[in-house]
């Protein structure tokens, strides 16, 4: 039972020298955990990522333009009623609030999906 792989990217418009927040929602009643990497460092490992500030408060460079953040989310199908799986990346603090939702079908219970999402700030 091979893992399903979903690799996507999305563009988010930011304000000059202003941080944004990222929240990750694992939908369709499935379970999952994520890790977020920004400028070479993991900044948000854990199952529930809510309003994660990017860049972090202590970062000298607060300008996000032309930078990327990489999110890796592993989802396991635990919901016997649905084979749908989805991950929503919600960004706030930029030009406008945006939710990017990606999905995959997991035909079997216990099957895994690896979501690789790159957010491009511009």
């Amino acid at each position, binding site marked *: 039972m*091979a*893992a399903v*792989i*979903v*690799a*996507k*990217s999305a563009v988010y418009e930011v304000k000059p020298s202003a941080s944004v927040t990222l929240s990750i*929602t*694992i*939908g*369709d*009643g*499935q*379970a*999952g*955990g*994520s*890790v977020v*990497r920004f400028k*070479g460092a*993991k900044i948000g*490992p*854990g*199952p*529930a990522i809510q309003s994660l500030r990017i860049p972090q408060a202590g970062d000298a460079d607060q300008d996000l333009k*032309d*930078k*990327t953040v*990489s999110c*890796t*989310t*592993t*989802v*396991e199908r*635990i*919901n016997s*009623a*649905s*084979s*749908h799986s*989805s991950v*929503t990346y919600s960004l706030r603090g930029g030009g406008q609030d945006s939710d990017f*939702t990606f*999905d995959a*079908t997991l035909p079997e219970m*216990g099957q*895994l999906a*690896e979501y*690789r999402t*790159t957010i*491009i700030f*511009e």
Partner: protein
Amino acid sequence: MTHTNVWRLVVVLGAAAGPLAAQTPDAGPAFNGLRTPVSPAFVLLGIAPTVVERPNTPADLAFSVLNRSAAFTSLPRDIALELSPYWLVKHPTLTWTADTVRGLGTSLSRTMTLSFATAELGTSTRPVTGLSVGFRAAPFSGRLSHQSITRLHELEAQLGNLSSLVDSLTAVDVARLDSILIRERRAATSDAERQAAQNRHAAAVAELTRTVTESEAYTTAVADMKETFKDLALIREGFVLEVAGGAAMQAPGGAADSAKLARWGAWITAGYEGKSLSFVVVNRFLASSVDSSFDALDLGMRLIYTTGRYALSAEGSFRSFTDRGAPANEYRFAALVDFELQKGLWVTGTFGRDYSASAPGSLLAQVGVSMNVAGQRIKLPLH
């Protein structure tokens, strides 16, 4: 009494009860047969399909219907279909934590299933097409147990670790691909070129990830996680109420004009699972326009008390035939005792009477020993 003496008693009782045990039915299946069925349509049609189609998307459903009905030119033949309208569509904002407790509306929508079946019930010389529809829903479906919630949080922590592993194994290459992506987007002169750069980036990241998921490090981590959570079961506890209903029609020769209602039924199952005291109440009504002599209303109740090393349960059921001239009302009751002699080894006793008290074997009196090393011995039959 020493353990040796207890063993002798069990062996003697077991030997004495042997012939009766062979003749009398177990109390559990007799009672559970009245419970709300998973697929009422199949029960009313009297079929047990080996393959049930369960479409997960509206497109799957449309394909099944079109495929089986020859694009609506005929009645679907030998089909067993079950679907949940709520889960046919995606719910990207519904987290499992939001589904631990349900209100009336959410419980109804998330548990409702529709079943549909057709089958050939006649003979080659006198073909009769049977068609049935049914529904099932739980207005109250309890809440996810604390133990299940804890296990799911632990699972999510492990899935986070797996994400971390994938991220670490690909970090250098992904950073390089990200740099290329930024450079290509800057150089692009149109949205199409920018989108093409993103597509190339996504394809490369997907390939990297595929390589990692085939690596020994990843497969070992997944195997360890699966081993840790192999017994994961999402148990809902508290008050549960399930309702179901359905009807079956028969069409001689498969002609639509000749179709008539043949059988219908309704079920209600209610139960509560507490820490030591649990109960389940069942109610079933079955009727037939072909042979009404067995139209019957069944009522039953089971009480279970569990504590430490023993469990006591009592169940009773009452059957009333509703047709004029039908047999007299019947009832059945049984008391069950389970005692754990040592971990995983249970002595079980069942005493009572079956529906037809005058029939041979209607006295329920069984004593036996059972092994159960896998887990919970007493479980309320709600799930």
